[in-house]
């Protein structure tokens, strides 16, 4: 048995709920407080908590560094890609009105993907910073 069994068990129990809460914050963003940035920080906090309790190596198994390093530019690309999608759909750059037949739905759809891009980049950047600091001593 490990000496720190309480933090370990609690972390395992909390893990799915923290991620679920992140998703709630992500999708609730357009209606109230929240959004991609906050949700991204919660996702990253979940992974950092996991890393603190179970060690860096376990965290690397859950979220391999190469995936994290790929996610950082990927989120930016999704964000910018929404702008380019507006361009391809016949509007100006960053024009979300043309993304759907109904302009309001178009705006909604544009924001959805922008927030998705923010979530991906913010969460992976935070985790990458943690990996960089935690990996320094080794």
């Amino acid at each position, binding site marked *: 048995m490990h000496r720190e069994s309480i933090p370990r068990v609690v972390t395992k129990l909390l893990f799915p709920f923290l991620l679920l809460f992140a998703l709630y914050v992500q999708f609730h963003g357009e209606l109230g407080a929240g959004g991609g940035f906050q949700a991204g920080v919660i996702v990253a906090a979940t992974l950092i908590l996991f890393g603190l309790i179970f060690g860096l190596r376990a965290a690397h198994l859950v979220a391999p560094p190469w995936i994290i390093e*790929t996610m*950082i*530019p*990927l989120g*930016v*690309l999704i964000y*910018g*890609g929404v*702008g*380019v999608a*507006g*361009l391809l759909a016949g*509007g*100006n*750059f*960053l*024009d*979300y*009105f043309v993304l759907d037949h109904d302009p309001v739905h178009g705006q909604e759809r544009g924001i959805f993907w922008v927030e998705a891009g923010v979530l991906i980049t913010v969460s992976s950047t935070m985790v990458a910073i943690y990996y960089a600091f935690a990996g320094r001593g080794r």
Partner: protein
Amino acid sequence: MTLQHLPALQVVVPLLAAPLCALLRRPTLAWAWATLVSWAALVIAALILTQVLTTGPISYWIGNWQPPWGIEYRIDTISAFMLVLVTGIGAVVMPYARVSLAAELPADRLPWYYTMYLLCLAGLLGMTVTGDAFNVFVFMEIASLSSYVLIAMGPSRRALMAAYQYLILGTIGATFYIIGVGFLYLMTGTLNIADLAERLPLVENQRPIIVGLAFIAVGLSLKFALFPLHFWLPGAYAYAPSAAAAFMAATATKVAVYLLLRFFFTVFGEAYPLPDMAIPVIWIGLSVAGMILASVMAIYQDDVKRMLALSSVAQIGYITLGIGLDSEVGLTGSVVHLFNHGITKGALFLLVGGIALTTGTVTIASLSGIARRMPLTMAGIVIAGMSLIGIPGTAGFVSKWYLILGAIEEGWWWLAAVIVASSLLAVVYMGRILEAAYLRPAPPGQEAREMPLSMLIPAWILVIGCVWFGLDTDLTADIAGRAAHALLGRAP
């Protein structure tokens, strides 16, 4: 259809190419991608320039939100001219960068370098095309943050210290700028540059506006290293990788000067003429101090890159001098010198970077007798050096000619004499390089070799540019004249 989206594509292409470049991870692949994007950006800039010259300023509504509520990209003669300079330097430096950077950086950092370079390019282009004062700040941060990283990647450990110094002063500069914009927003309720220009006359002679102007002027002066605010520059350019130093010396400070022109003339020009604000006096004083003192400091440098960087501070003095003259001829000189100094200093940094490839740091002592080993490189330095001094037939002469004309037009003969005197100081510091390279004997065991063609050709393109734009002033001086005319608000 695509033509109408050129203003957005000018920024979006390098901006989105940067994260793609980060995904590539293979040095050669990342280099090829960044080079391709740089050339695409140059093509876009050239198309924009021809469009602006034939049909007048372009306005582009980002997200189809109508200005002044939405962000507007607005390109007139001077911004199109700046776009061509920035992308042109980028397109010339990139082919050079592959060999030079491979020698200076560890291989695993190269893809990150190209990513940061593309971000820096996107930021500089964004600062130029945007017609929104806050948007300028956003792009300024993109360009600055990426250039801190570019400098910190330099081969010696001192690069970190230089990047840190630049980070602190650059951040103060950007903060001052945004505080100034905040004051303007407070008084006018708008961030759109054209709208600001329209509304400022309504709030004439209010103290917050003047404070705002002061913050913007000092903030931007820090960014382009006006004489007493230049301390970050020599270290930053001396320790950055050679390709980064050449790119930034030729573009980064120039774009900040462009913004200053924008604010001084487009935004404030009508409601707050510069002479009323006593700006010309301060401006000419600082410019002259920079031209003389920075040149004198350059004479005493042993590190050649530091010498060139200090010479940049002096050359910035010429550019701001033209602004202080507040006349069409003076301003033409300023705008033309933005371009001419860009290619001249770019050429010199590329050539010195080639010497650094074999000798490490380039000091006056390490140059001894190097002309026999690297005749083409040194010949390039001679020609670019002549352009720096301003010898007739070179690009540098054209801009200094306009500045001297501007000074004489005001009846300030002493100022014309100062310009000539400062040029003579340039003869001294360039002379030190040439004396060491041509007249001193080579130390035994010197292993310097001519740099590879992939570096020599880009450097020589800029060297030829120094002569070309000295003889054929149609492109540069004409466009600069039109830009100056438009800036001073006399029907474009």
